[in-house]
């Protein structure tokens, strides 16, 4: 009986120490689920989900405060990916937030721009270059197409144009899709 007590105590101590060390050495920093959700969001930072950017929305999803269907730029693909990650049902996009539209790019009409810097302040990713009373321009590579710069412009000189497909960005069509169109089936 005495030996049993000693043995169990020793075992408990060893495992306790092991767990204690593990807790310190293998500690996971931050909240990985927020990171994972944030990675799946398109980072448009448009605020259509009613949060101030993609990360706050990711945090809200992680806390279970909002649904996963509030991201129009990500659209169906993002909802599906989020549903997979969080193991919940796929839902159609919430119309309240907007509709899924083709990718666009902000273009400033340089003849009409008065150099007010309002769009620069609105851009969430610093993709607009310019100074007071100087013409502004958009970095096409950095623009996420969030449309946040359109509203503040006092002379309405910013247009959202659809990004043009070129041979380098073109993708081969889905063969199964083509077969469906022609009535065939695989």
């Amino acid at each position, binding site marked *: 009986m005495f030996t049993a007590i000693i043995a169990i105590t020793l075992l408990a101590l060893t495992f306790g120490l092991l767990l204690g060390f593990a807790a310190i050495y293998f500690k996971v920093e931050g909240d990985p689920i927020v990171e994972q959700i*944030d990675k799946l*969001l*398109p*980072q*448009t*930072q448009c605020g259509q989900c009613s949060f101030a*950017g*993609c990360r706050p929305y990711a945090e809200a999803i992680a806390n279970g405060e909002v649904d996963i269907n509030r991201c129009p730029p990500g659209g169906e693909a993002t909802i599906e990916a989020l549903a997979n990650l969080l193991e919940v049902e796929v839902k159609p996009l919430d119309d309240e937030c907007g509709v899924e539209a083709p990718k666009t790019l902000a273009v400033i009409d340089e003849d009409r721009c008065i150099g007010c810097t309002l769009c620069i302040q609105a851009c*969430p*990713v*610093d*993709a607009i270059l310019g100074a007071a009373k100087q013409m502004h321009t958009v970095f096409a590579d*950095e623009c*996420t197409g969030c449309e946040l710069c359109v509203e503040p412009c006092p002379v309405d000189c910013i247009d959202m144009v659809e990004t043009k*497909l*070129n*041979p380098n*960005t*073109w*993708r*081969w*069509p*889905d*063969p*199964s899709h083509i*077969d469906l169109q*022609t009535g*065939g*089936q*695989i």
Partner: protein
Amino acid sequence: MTQALGSFPGGLKLAGQKKRSTQTPIRKMPLSKTLVLPLQQHIGESAVAIVKVGDKVLKGQKIATANGHVSVCLHAPSSGIISAVGDHPIPHPSGLSAPCISIDTDGEDHWVERNMAEDFSDLTAHELRQRIREAGIVGLGGAGFPSFIKLNPGVHHHVETLILNGVECEPYITCDDMLMRERAQGIMDGIEVMQQALHVNNCVIAIEDNKPEAISSMELALASREKLKDTKVVVIPTRYPAGSEKQLIQTITGKQVPTRGLTLDIGIVLHNVGTAYAVGRAIKHGEPLISRIVTVTGKDVKHAGNFETLFGTPIHELLSFCDTKRKAGEPFIQGGPMMGYNLAGDKLPVTKTANCILVGVDDATQAAKPLPCIRCGDCATVCPVSLLPQQLYWHSRSKDLEKTSEYNLFDCIECGCCSYVCPSQIPLVQYFRFAKTETMNQEQERQKSDLARIRHDNRQERQERERIEKEEKQRQRKAALAASKAAKEKKEAEAAESQSESQEKQ
């Protein structure tokens, strides 16, 4: 010295269909009235136009310059006047337009001054590469990778063997075959230049055994060359796709190029015979790459053959020159029946990578209606890269891109053997091409969203910093104000005190 040949897995024995286009010697395609030159005719960054509408250009004059490292120049194929610089349909499976330079030819074919080097032995490897780059030479086998890069092994690699690819394994195509038959000496010039640029003597010219005329012509030309005593012609068995880069290296040396690796990693550089010919012309005769030999063949072509065609020549002119049964607007194939793609439209120009124009395939196997996969496994048997096309097919179809990458989708060379043998006639290669471009697109999107995230985070950090700085300044200003106020009060108090004191004294 005879060396035992290696082999690659899978592959197919296909009917060559080559006789149709080898009955006549190489002919020159007549000069077209308008030449349209896409700025991107190679892998890498597209060239930048250096001419404007109305400029007069001479044959061989540079009209667009290389942009960045993986890029080459572009030259006017004939003399004339620039009539347009802008978007024009290009021979691409998408059917899209891209920036092009159009030239209205004047028919005089006036050459620009050429920088010839009959004896190039005093040129350094670097100078040779620069000249090859300036001449706009890219791989003429079909992929169009800038050749000067493949002639630059760098300091970390040692080149043991240069392999010249004269295999031309795909049915119907005969442009390399005819070039080797008729212009073997020109190819030898190019090999000498390439050997000097790479500092390598050991060279193998690989030719399939279904081209006896080309083999004897090349052997004859080789015998007359003092410099090329370590070069030999190696005849390999005819089997598709023996002419694909990695499969050919495996056949010749028995070595495998590692996944995502370069041929240089195993000490081998491989060039097409057509590229060698172009290199020879560029160095010895100062001629930039402005034309190539194009095979025009197929069951609907009356006068099939090989044509030396200036770049920019409209493909429909080439087709009407050969008298085809094709009606305007009907699709045709650029490349071979296995790896080529359908093109439609009549205004498409001949480009650097256009090795063959095919109108009407004899045994067209593409069925309109694919049947379900019966898991026979034939596709895996014929795959020359030992992939599992069936698994790749399932995952591509369900758009599980991660899984396709796990099954090494990017090792697929799109040779088309799997689609060819599939009893259910599933367009497997189409699925793989689809999955490949989807994966690349996804990767680009991911990079873009990562960039946006970083920029957004940086902006927030900056705004936060600015806010703190502003608050700090405000606080300091308040403190300064308070201090000065206090000092003033103190002074006033002191003044008042001293006043009252003096009053008291009075």
